[in-house]
């Protein structure tokens, strides 16, 4: 009953000054709209940029690194074991780059419940022969099907079809830059020379654009078997296994575990690409601070308008107090006014924010390096909407709280005597 009465009075005061109220609400609407749009756009962009690398990067990469052996003979001598031994001119191990027991490892990965999938990979350094010119490049031997499933390989194929890698023997998909340099199209042949001097003729079945031009100038893909043939190595010869996990956050722990378990090197995505996470979090931070700044400005608008309203309504407040409304009743009335401005403005803001981001989502955005992206990226995460409405509630509450407290402290005697 009490609440309803106070809300009645609040809404009467609100409606009597609906123009002012509307201006205040528009302030909130504007800031929430911008907040939502900014965050959706920024986070869409973040996802896009992260996806550029992260989607194509394994969560855990199992490989054999080229490095000096940690167990140098001097460390095994009891006499010198306690000291720190400096060894000069140390050389890397002559161990092979292929992963030992790759078949067994893949079988055990298949049983691991944390693993979403894996894809073996083999890298061959080759020269692409174009007349008298040799272009250095590399060929990745991949399982096209797995690569597409786990790392969106298909998204970057601009011409041709990734499935042809398996269907057509001795086939290759070239980077766009590389294909342009070699002046080849689908169906043409390219000649390569391996580091051991052997020559091969491969058939082009497609080109890809990864979005990073330096990649496209030197890289190409072929099926695992083709690359094994080029390198004349056996069927189980792979230089790395790309593992994708169900939960990316587990990657560092899993990498450590695999390192021990499989006696190889394993690198997690967080270590390999830490700069991307830093970039994303800073971009997010900037968008949040801009959004919150907008809201605080809107809060000051509400504060001003309520202050003015209280100044105008001195008489009404005085008589309400004289006829039995307590200070806390008066305070509640003004807080209701502030909150209803906040909620109304906030909800409108969510609506407009959604509208504006959908419009941005329709604006064409064609860039050579990102063939799959046709419009500006937008992330419609409901989280932003929840944060938006909660923030609009909180700022308007505080913007209303100070004027409301002032109103509750008005002494009716001073007003009535002043007449």
């Amino acid at each position, binding site marked *: *009953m*009490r609440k309803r*009465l106070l809300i009645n*009075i609040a809404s*009467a*005061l609100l*409606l*009597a000054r609906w123009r002012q109220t509307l201006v205040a609400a528009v302030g909130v609407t504007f800031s929430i709209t911008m907040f939502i749009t900014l965050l959706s756009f920024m986070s869409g962009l973040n996802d896009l940029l992260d996806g550029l690398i992260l989607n194509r990067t394994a969560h855990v990469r199992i490989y054999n690194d080229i490095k000096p052996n940690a167990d140098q003979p001097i460390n095994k001598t009891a006499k010198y074991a306690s000291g720190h031994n400096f060894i000069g001119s140390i050389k890397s191990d002559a161990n092979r780059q292929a992963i030992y027991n790759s078949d067994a490892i893949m079988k055990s990965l298949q049983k691991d419940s944390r693993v979403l999938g894996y894809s073996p990979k083999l890298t061959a350094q080759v020269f692409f022969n174009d007349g008298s010119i040799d272009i250095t490049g590399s060929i990745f031997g991949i399982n096209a099907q797995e690569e597409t499933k786990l790392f969106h390989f298909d998204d970057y194929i601009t011409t041709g079809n990734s499935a042809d890698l398996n269907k057509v023997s001795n086939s290759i998909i070239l980077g766009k830059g590389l294909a342009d340099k070699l002046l080849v199209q689908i169906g043409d042949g390219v000649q390569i020379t391996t580091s051991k001097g052997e020559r091969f003729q491969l058939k082009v079945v497609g080109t890809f654009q990864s979005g990073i031009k330096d990649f496209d100038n030197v890289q190409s893909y072929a099926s695992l078997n083709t690359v094994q043939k080029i390198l004349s190595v056996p069927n189980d010869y792979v230089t790395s296994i790309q593992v994708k996990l169900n939960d990316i956050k587990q990657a560092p722990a899993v990498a450590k575990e695999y390192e021990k378990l499989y006696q190889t090197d394993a690198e997690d995505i967080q270590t390999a690409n830490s700069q991307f996470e830093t970039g994303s979090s800073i971009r997010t931070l900037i968008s949040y601070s801009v959004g919150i700044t907008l809201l605080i400005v809107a809060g000051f608008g509400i504060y001003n308008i309520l202050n003015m309203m209280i100044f105008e309504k001195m*008489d*009404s407040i*005085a*008589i*309400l*107090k*004289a*006829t*039995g*409304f*307590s*200070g*806390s*009743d008066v305070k509640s009335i003004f807080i209701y006014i502030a909150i209803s401005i906040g909620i109304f403005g906030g909800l409108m803001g969510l609506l407009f924010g959604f509208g504006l981001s959908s419009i941005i989502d329709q604006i064409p955005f064609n860039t050579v390096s990102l063939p799959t992206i046709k419009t500006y990226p937008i992330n419609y995460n409901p989280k932003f909407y929840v944060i938006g409405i909660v923030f609009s509630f909180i700022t308007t509450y505080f913007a209303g709280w100070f004027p409301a407290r002032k109103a509750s402290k008005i*002494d*009716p*005697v001073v007003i*009535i*005597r002043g*007449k």
Partner: protein
Amino acid sequence: MNTILEAKNINKFFHDPVRIQVIEDLSFSINKGEFVSLTGKSGCGKSTLLYVLSTMDTDYDGALFIDGEEMPKKNEPFLAKIRNEKIGFVFQFHYLLNEFNVLENVMLPGLKLAKYSRAEVEHRAMEKLKILGIDHLALKKSNHVSGGEKQRVAIARALINDPHIIMGDEPTGNLDKKNSDMVFDIFNQLSSEFNQTLLIVTHDPSFAERTHRIIKMEDGKILK
């Protein structure tokens, strides 16, 4: 005779700009059904006294009893409740809320008290308006009625919770002769027909003369 309002040794000072005593050790009481006027020259402290008696001003020394209960000086929500339930106010200025119509203005204190349902409060408000002969204005916006009518609406608002006492601070001060007489007649009618207790501050001698009892003040003291 039961005492509605009793003041015991009330002293009040103004501190700004210099300490001045406005009310000096003042004691008196008002019984049920009395129609009392409080008169005196400007600045003698009669309005100040009224605000002390009305519980709105708590910065005083001494004791104030309303309906036999001593009024605390610190408990603002409790005093607000007392004003709501036991005291009706009529000021020189009507203080109606322009956002509401006449009926709603009268109903507000009743809704605040929440003793009756909304429908009942509305019914009672209509009755009060009828007593004052302005029930035809009930649905008009309060800033669309004349000055005399506004003051009558203010009286109806003071009556809505059947207060123990009605306090008036120069309720006729802003009105012409005709409307002043009408307001007096209303007060007189309330006093005689409904046994309503009234305490009215006025500097209009003709108004004061017609009341049951005159308390005359000078320099913060009551003249006998």
